């Protein structure tokens, strides 16, 4: 017969530290404090989110020989096709164009997938949300980690591109961790926001899908900003571009434009602020929405 120590209990004991107690008062909801508790609790229990992320990947690719490497393979195939076609269409050298296209596609795939899966961050976890008290942050972190792991499977492809085209990374590569951090923060904030919006308004997911499709063509992924000639500055108004630039820049462009970095920080601040405000206001409603 087991008699576990009380600090092993689920529910508020594990959820917040200190004495196990919940006080919920509709007249005094303490929304901000409780949202911060949720975030802290979710990050403190990152192991749960990580375990769920791996589980998702394992279940998604169960029985598949290549598993998540299928994504790298399909990126590679797309890369060869698009690379040959567009280097002819845009009249640029394959050797110059393909590395750009490759890194761009990998970055974009990560962004597009996270946004798409962010839409179902909460509705997809309906079963657990209604049955146990967990930080909502856990569900968001699960989506972000899952996509980070999947994207990491593209690493061999990047190395391959570098080897084939004889590129050597320069000092700009040192900025990559910062770029990835910015990307991660945005992924988290956007997943949180879209997860809530899509739980409440079921049409948002469809809208997001269309927007992302258009954004793929509007963002310099298969074309370079330089091809806009004197209008190249206009890409700076594209939030996808500046965020992507913090990852693409360090890998292939010697660090990326300072303006793009500054704007990326601005975009991040706005996205985080908006998402946090929304989370503070509507966190308690998520259980009713899913």
């Amino acid at each position, binding site marked *: *017969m*087991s*008699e*576990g120590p*009380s600090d*092993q*209990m*689920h*529910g*508020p*004991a*594990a*959820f917040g530290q200190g*004495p*196990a*107690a*919940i*006080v*919920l*008062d*509709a*007249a005094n*909801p303490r929304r901000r404090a409780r949202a911060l508790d949720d975030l802290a609790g979710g990050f403190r*229990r990152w*192991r*749960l989110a990580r*375990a*769920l992320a791996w*589980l998702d990947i*394992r*279940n998604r690719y*169960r029985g598949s020989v290549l598993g998540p490497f299928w994504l790298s393979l399909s990126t590679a195939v797309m890369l060869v096709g698009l690379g040959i076609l567009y280097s002819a269409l845009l009249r640029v050298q394959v050797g110059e164009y393909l590395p750009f296209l490759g890194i761009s596609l990998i970055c974009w795939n990560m962004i597009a997938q996270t946004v798409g899966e962010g839409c179902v961050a909460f509705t997809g976890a309906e*079963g*657990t*949300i*209604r*049955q*146990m*008290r*967990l930080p909502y942050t856990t569900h968001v972190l699960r989506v972000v980690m899952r996509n980070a792991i999947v994207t990491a499977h593209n690493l061999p492809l990047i190395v391959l591109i570098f080897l084939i085209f004889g590129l050597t990374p320069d000092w700009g590569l040192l900025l990559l961790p910062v770029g990835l951090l910015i990307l991660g923060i945005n992924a988290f904030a956007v997943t949180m926001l879209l997860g809530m919006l899509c739980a*409440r308004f*079921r049409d948002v997911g469809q809208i997001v899908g269309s927007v992302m499709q258009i954004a793929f063509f509007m963002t310099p992924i298969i074309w370079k900003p330089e091809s806009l000639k004197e209008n190249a500055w206009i890409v700076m108004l594209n939030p996808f571009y500046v965020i992507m630039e913090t990852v693409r820049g360090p890998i292939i462009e010697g660090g990326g434009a300072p303006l793009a970095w500054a704007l990326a920080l601005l975009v991040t601040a706005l996205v985080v602020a908006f998402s946090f405000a929304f989370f503070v206001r509507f966190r*308690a409603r998520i*259980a*009713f*929405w899913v």
Partner: protein
Amino acid sequence: MANISAEGLTIEFPLYHAGARSLKKRVLAATPLRLRTDNANRIVVSALRDLTFSIEHGERVALVGPNGAGKTTLLRALAGIYEPVGGKLAVEGTIGSLIDTSAGMDIDSTGRENIRLNGLYRGMTEPQIEALSEEIVAFAGLGEFIDVPIRTYSAGMGVRLSFALATAMQPQVLLMDEWLLAGDAEFLERAKARLEHVVTNAEILVIATHDTKIVRTWCTRAIRLEGGRITADGDVDSILG
């Protein structure tokens, strides 16, 4: 000391995706009992309406009432899943909720992997999970099946595992939706002793059930819910009659 207190606790479910307009016409005119429009002109179901009660250390409370009375919603509110729309709720003590014991299980993972996952859900650390794991494995008594995906389990094997998990730890406030042992005869004797141990050692028990025998055996107090309101609250005999 564990205790629960609710003052004017109200929980409402907005019906977001139900074709509000036609539904409104049809339902509101006819039965203004539990569906109403809120001030944002949405249709809401009043699941719990203005509940005031307190449960002290040592009490064993049965929630009784017809289907749809709000019993499970009240349990979920006590577990902190639904936050009150109106009123106040305070729960002191570690909470163990056996509302749906299969929640969070992954059918493609083995029994052992599910034990680990369950531990993570409960916020345990690896060593704590490790320590508890062997005991759960032994109690579930699934033999070699513990290392097989639970997708392949029979219904009875699934019950064994989720029961072993659910009762592996001792909460101060135990929330149960129906008595866990319903129907599993072969496993019953050992399981009964274990469940009784957990129930007896909890400082507060709140159980939603239709089984009057369970209520009479285990509970010291019964709260009757009807239509989201408390219609009677008192000792078991006076409520069940």
